[in-house]
């Protein structure tokens, strides 16, 4: 079966979705990615969807699940390269992708991942709690 390649780049895994993302490929990606996150102790996943011409609610759900699953495995996920027409369409469709981090380009996505990984190792993840104390 066709599978989407996952490339390792330091602590980050890179996934570029270029094929027609049908249901089985999407679910296989979710499995492959969680396995690699654990086996390679990856700290971040960059998912590039710039080649996709549409995202429907099923794909939206898979992308959202990948982000949530990654987070459970101590890994951040950033979605990059969404076409503007897709952003408009999935909003109207009602796909919210709540909690998923995004960046416009792969480069900006890598920067965001590195920032998140760095601030976590610096112990800044409790920033929210500090804000709460200040009030």
């Amino acid at each position: 079966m066709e599978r989407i390649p996952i490339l390792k780049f330091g602590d980050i895994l890179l996934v570029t979705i270029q094929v027609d993302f049908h249901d089985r490929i999407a679910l296989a990606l979710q499995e492959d990615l969680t396995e690699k996150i654990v086996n390679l102790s990856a700290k971040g996943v960059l998912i590039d969807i710039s080649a996709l011409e549409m995202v429907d609610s099923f794909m939206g759900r898979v992308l959202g699940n990948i982000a949530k699953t990654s987070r459970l495995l101590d890994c951040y996920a950033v979605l990059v390269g969404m076409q503007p027409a897709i952003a408009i369409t999935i909003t109207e469709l009602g796909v919210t992708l709540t909690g998923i981090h995004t960046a416009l380009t792969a480069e900006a996505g890598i920067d965001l991942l590195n920032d998140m990984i760095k601030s976590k190792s610096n112990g800044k993840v409790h920033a929210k709690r500090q804000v709460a104390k200040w009030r």
Partner: protein
Amino acid sequence: MAIKSQEERAISAEEDIILVRNSVKRVTALLNFSLVNQTKIISAASELARNTLEHGKGGRAIIQLVNDPDRVGIRLTFEDHGPGIADINRALEDGFTTTRGMGLGLGGARRLMDEFVIESKENDGTTVSVTKWIEKS
């Protein structure tokens, strides 16, 4: 309204959803829909084709290029002979799902298109027809 051309695709496996999307994409490009509208129509087709496969246990998609005096459009009809929908109003609500989707299929497709017609009979099947128009310039 006149039907200028028509194409039919069976929906019996996941891969057929992609074939439906590709056929729809070809027609939307032919009609010169804007990129945003092309994306909306293809997404609606994907949602409805998945419904036909998963809820209707398969069926067919009919892709038509339709023509009015002042506008042209694409009409997509999805037919199945599955269990039908007991409560159509509820099925149109966001979040209503009986399978693994987000439950946005019907309501979402309705929002993405200009016209939406659904007919369903329990134990007999469901037909959903959606249309998007473009003014003739």
